[in-house]
């Protein structure tokens, strides 16, 4: 008689902690107004399916992302963060995303340094015309975070 093998999901950083059976990751999506948010809108209006795990907030420009936003998301509900802005050269404010990508790199490296898996925080460039790309990016991030398991580091008690 064959028995069904249920693979247990554990936190990658804390392997002794198991995810509850119906666990679904929560991903914080921080999208810039002019490209990525419009891109995600196009995904919706084109009726392209993407995982419902992402919770989107809209910001004026990717350079509005203080590393604080990412830290705060990770400290509260999120299991992962996706930050997305306009492609280099496409910024509505000309150079905002160039400033932003410097911060992204340093934030990502510091989080990894203190013990976060590097896939917990991801970044993408999605233009307003790339509805399909947005769906693919969200699918990839969700898939990655599902593999990493729930984030159990430095969480606020009641979140």
């Amino acid at each position, binding site marked *: 008689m064959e028995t069904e093998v249920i693979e247990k999901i554990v936190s990658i*950083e804390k392997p002794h902690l198991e995810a509850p059976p119906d666990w679904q990751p929560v991903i914080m999506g921080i999208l810039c107004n002019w490209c990525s948010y419009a891109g995600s809108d196009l995904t919706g209006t084109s009726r392209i399916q993407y995982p419902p795990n992402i919770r989107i907030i809209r910001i004026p420009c990717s350079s509005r992302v203080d590393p604080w936003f990412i830290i705060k998301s990770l400290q509260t509900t999120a299991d992962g963060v996706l930050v997305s802005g306009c492609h280099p050269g496409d910024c509505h404010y000309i150079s905002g995303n160039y400033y932003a*990508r410097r911060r992204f790199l340093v934030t990502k490296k*510091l989080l990894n340094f203190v013990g976060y898996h590097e896939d917990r925080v991801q970044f*993408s460039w999605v233009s307003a015309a790339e509805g399909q790309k947005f769906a693919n990016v969200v699918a990839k991030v969700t898939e990655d975070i599902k593999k990493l398991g729930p984030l159990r580091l430095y969480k606020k008690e009641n979140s």
Partner: protein
Amino acid sequence: MDYTKQIKEIAGKLFSEEKIDVFIGYRNSGFDENQVPVLIHHYQDVDQLVFTEKSVFNLTNYLKYEHTRNKRVGLVVKGCDSRALNLMLTENQVKRENLYIVGIACEGVVDEAGQKAQNCLECVMPDSVVFDEMLGTPSGKREYQVNADIRELDGKELTERLTYFEEVFENCIRCNACRHSCPLCYCDKCCIDQETSTLYHGANTTSSAFHALMTWSLHLAGRCVDCRNCEKACPSHLPLHLLHKQNEKVVYENFQEHQAGMIEGDRGAFYKYSMSDPDDFIM
């Protein structure tokens, strides 16, 4: 390294010529071997001033508080302090014409154990980069090297680093002394106070420490000058330099060898950009 005599003379001269309202220097603490910062307001107090290798603090921190705002200030700066001052000038926190800067060609200060401090062993710029008057013989810029502790931690597994930092964040009591003692943290409203200042509210949790210290160190990435004023102020003796040195390393390696405050008018690494900045980690 003992410039006590020269500094007394300079301060005395500035006061008698009425060029300054206040002089920021060091004095002996009076109850142990260590020195503490002192604000001198009158000519007759000038005799308190000292300067030796025990003059560890970064005095530019006192420029951000009210008692020196819009006053004519004389102060002593070592190499690292002068880099912080350079950034404060660039970021319009102080006016150059209000300052009389006594620069030191620094030979390094000592830590609590009496050994040469780690940041001095790795110092990239011991000479004051902005000054009106220089004491000592300048020895010039030195080669950047990756911090010894960072090299060690980099070689460890993710989980080992996690265990290490969990203990660090756990031991923080959220007193915010690190932020207050950093000359480059001068915001009137600071976002880490959103986790309410916690000695009063009992929220000095590991989580709130993680939030505060990570945010704080990322706000100083590309600006921190490694004076270690923050670390000296920390009552829990946490290795705060690890966060800053890690950021410094990433900034140096990826953003055209940027070093904070070296050149007059140069801004922090996050306030400029280059077309060739790394992009491969972005989808």
